[in-house]
């Protein structure tokens, strides 16, 4: 072990994470180019969806100062990254980065992302994974960023075969990663609440 460096230790993002990562929510404008929770542009391929929910503490209360990031494959199941050398039937979409960030709202406590539904993609050993969105959650009081995944309730056959979901022993815990689908005023909305602690605690990952 001695020939390796130790990873730098994590520290909480604190209550003012918005300043650095989404300054508009902190209340000011400074950068020309801002990162946001809008992942899909007009030209992006795929089904438009909204993901929304609360981040909930150990008393059941929603927290209003969380910051979330998502990372996902495109509609064909390919990540916009040079190390995803998928087959020709999973082409890159030049209009989709697959990454976004947003905060829970100071007033409503909801977060949301407007994106497209990702495609399925294989594990490194070839087993297929169900479509999913990778989440990373940080906030005041979170000492090290929490990783989890959101799966889609309308993909029950793929979910039943997903290697990660199958690792979860308790069905009730597996359900914490599966977001129900709802049509609301013409928008497809997946509701994904993240429970940090207590009843229905979300399955978090050590990846």
């Amino acid at each position, binding site marked *: 072990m001695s020939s*390796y*460096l*130790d*990873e*730098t*230790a*994590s*520290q*909480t*993002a*604190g209550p*003012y*994470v*918005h*300043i*650095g*990562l989404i300054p508009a929510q902190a*209340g*000011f404008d*400074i*950068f020309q*180019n801002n990162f946001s929770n809008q992942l899909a542009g007009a030209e992006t391929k795929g089904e438009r969806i909204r993901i929304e929910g609360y981040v909930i503490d*150990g*008393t059941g209360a929603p927290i209003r100062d969380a910051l979330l*990031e998502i*990372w996902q*494959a495109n509609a064909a199941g390919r*990540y*916009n*990254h*040079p*190390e995803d050398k998928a087959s020709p039937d999973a082409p890159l979409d030049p209009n989709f980065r*697959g990454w976004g960030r947003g905060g829970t709202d100071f007033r409503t406590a909801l977060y949301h992302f407007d994106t497209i539904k990702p495609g399925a993609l294989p594990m*490194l*050993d070839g087993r297929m*994974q169900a479509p*999913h969105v*990778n989440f990373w959650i*940080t*906030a*005041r*009081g*979170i*000492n*090290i*960023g*929490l*990783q989890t*995944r959101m799966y889609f309730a309308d993909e029950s056959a793929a979910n039943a075969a997903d*290697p*990660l979901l199958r*690792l979860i022993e308790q069905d009730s815990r597996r359900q914490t990663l599966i977001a129900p689908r709802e049509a609301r005023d013409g928008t497809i909305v997946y509701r994904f609440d993240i429970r*940090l*602690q*207590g009843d229905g605690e979300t*399955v*978090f*990952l*050590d*990846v």
Partner: protein
Amino acid sequence: MEKTGQYYQRDRLIHPPAYTPGYKTSVLRSPRLALLSVEQSLSDITGPVFGADEIGLLDNDLLRNYAKTGEPIGERMIVHGRVLDQDARPLAGVLVEFWQANASGKYRHVNDTYKAAIDPNFGGCGRALTDANGFYTFRSIKPGPYPWRNRLNDWRPAHIHFSIFGHGFSQRLITQMYFEGDPLIRHCPMLNGIPDDGARQRLIAPLDLNASIPLDSLAYRFDIVLRGRRGTYFENGQ
């Protein structure tokens, strides 16, 4: 040879655990159940790639990126360092973002109620991409300490928040940099939530007099290490 494989298992003993009761807000925001350990896939090995065209010319100059009527008040300083992985390989082209309080310990944030003065010329955030050798640099003023509601008389040591992307989403990290010699460091419940003394010490940036600019700015050095990764020679060469 460039490594492209899975990332080393994260050594969680060098990180603060989720539950650190000395930092009261962690009590209700810490998962109680074990993390699920899973094989990495492209979901974890890949991550967003950022380009120089997304970063503005003044984004790493906090003396000027929010200057309205003049420069911000405070001690001028340079913060610089390298982003490496656990094999000491430099990570090029990774996004480093940072934010901090002003010289009086006040944040430009709608939720900051501290009575100290806001600085009209200081935004308090910036970002940079690492160069081919993993170096980043930015210029700012030294942040002040400030009180926070934890115990009634808790004060944060001067610090800068860092958010770092590696090449894969599983390298994602947020941390804080502290300043050598700050007497508040030993009282800090956030820093002291890290169980390993070496890991705590590596968050304290030493004064780097050689990198300071004579008659202009002091400098501090803060190197950042992200998770390393296995080579895939045998997997690829089968």
